[in-house]
């Protein structure tokens, strides 16, 4: 009898709290989004699974000695995992389109307005009862507008670790929602004629330009924004490994096995921050709302900047490509391509959108560095 009592007490049933049940539903929801809706499954599947595990009563996944505790403290608290992912992403990124048309860097710059406007919005939310975002919190939330997962996780782990779970979930969810969020904004801000503009073929970029480019980016970052060098540095290392062509085995490993291993762990670690105390707050609602606003503002700023550029440019510029400046590589570029095809079924904008798209990655890494320097 006593054994059965022990056994009953060792089931989770008498220990469940309402918050844990809700968070498990959130975890299942993320798994649903990942598996059925195919929303950024590489991250949302392990994040959702981590959310399930961390909320199991008695199992202690995120307590001292628990698996997720170790993974979080080894990889996220130290910043190692997002930086390794960034290295791998760098090794996958082709800057050819950007080097061929460097003006697109301005589009990547404009789209960062989503970040800084959202920072302002987060502080403005403090006027409402229940919200008490510090400047650090606001900066970590605003980076969602950068539409870049590793950058968001890295900055949140430095500025507002307690919001990390909500921020990462919002960042990846909205990145998956890019095909739904962006097109209405893009269409509202452009005329059908503008959307049909055909752009000139991009020139071929030489291997040496591609090798020097990451070094130039790093050099500039070192000079004026050392706080961005962890992110930009690892990104440029990955890109240099790829483009130099002399360490292909390292480059391949960085963009395959290493990034895969780290992605599994990073997802689980982020999921482990989805506890009810941290997530089931009115602030999470604020974060989700601000994230959507950030994406929208970033998209609009990119498109408007493209229209402005087009005014002063000798070559034709389709303003749609400005929307790709939010990054969310390569989905935002695909969305640009699709909206362009809707306007003119012979107008393929994908390559032209890759320039602002990768510029957006640099732009948000730079923005993260600025936020670290000013409020970190």
């Amino acid at each position, binding site marked *: 009898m006593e*054994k059965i009592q022990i056994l009953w007490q060792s089931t989770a049933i008498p220990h469940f709290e309402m918050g844990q049940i809700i968070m498990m539903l959130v975890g299942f929801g993320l798994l649903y989004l990942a598996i059925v809706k195919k929303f*950024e499954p*590489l991250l949302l599947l392990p994040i959702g699974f981590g959310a399930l595990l961390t909320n199991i009563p008695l199992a202690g996944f995120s307590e001292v000695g628990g698996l997720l505790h170790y993974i979080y403290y080894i990889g996220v608290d130290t910043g190692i995992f997002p930086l390794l992912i960034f290295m791998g992403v760098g090794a996958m990124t082709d800057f050819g389109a950007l080097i061929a048309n460097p003006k697109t860097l301005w589009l990547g710059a404009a789209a960062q307005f989503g970040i800084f406007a959202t920072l302002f919005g987060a502080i403005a939310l403090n006027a409402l009862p229940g919200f008490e975002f510090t400047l650090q919190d606001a900066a970590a939330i605003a980076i969602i507008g950068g539409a870049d997962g590793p950058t968001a996780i890295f900055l949140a782990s430095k500025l507002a670790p307690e919001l990390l779970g909500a921020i990462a979930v919002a960042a990846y969810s909205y990145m998956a929602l890019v095909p739904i969020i962006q097109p209405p904004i893009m269409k509202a801000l452009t005329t059908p004629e503008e959307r049909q503009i055909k752009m000139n073929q991009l020139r071929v970029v030489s291997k040496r330009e591609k090798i020097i480019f990451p070094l130039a980016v790093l050099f500039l970052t070192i000079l004026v924004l050392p706080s961005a060098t962890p992110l930009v540095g690892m990104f440029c290392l990955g890109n240099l490994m790829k483009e130099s062509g002399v360490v292909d085995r390292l480059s391949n490993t960085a963009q395959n096995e290493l990034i895969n291993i780290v992605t599994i762990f990073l997802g689980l670690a982020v999921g482990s921050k989805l506890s009810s105390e941290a997530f089931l707050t009115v602030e999470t609602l604020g974060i989700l709302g601000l994230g959507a606003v950030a994406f929208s503002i970033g998209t609009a700023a990119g498109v408007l900047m493209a229209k402005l550029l087009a005014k002063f440019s000798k070559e034709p510029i389709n303003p749609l490509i400005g929307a790709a400046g939010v990054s969310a590589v*390569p989905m935002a570029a695909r969305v640009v*391509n699709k909206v362009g095809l809707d306007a003119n079924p*012979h107008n*393929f904008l*994908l*390559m032209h959108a890759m320039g602002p798209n990768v510029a957006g990655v640099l732009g948000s890494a730079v923005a993260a560095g600025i936020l670290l320097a000013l409020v970190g």
Partner: protein
Amino acid sequence: MTPPTISEQLLEAASLLLVGMSSVFVFLSVLIVSVKLITKFVEAFPEPAATAHVTPTAASSSFHQQDVITAITHAVSAYRQGKQPPSN
């Protein structure tokens, strides 16, 4: 606290044997029922054949950029088309 005698230990082990095997059987029996329910559920709600294919390309957006290749193909064909007299 005195160490348990061997007979106390054996009693403990026997009760573990009983409780443990019962638990394993109960657990896996419930799992059998669950599997049958899953099968029924899946048969009751057959997969809408189309939806799975709507957004597969949305997967893993931040990871691969092979579209670049697709894009180049398109760009080349667009470029060629641009040289021909427009047919539309």
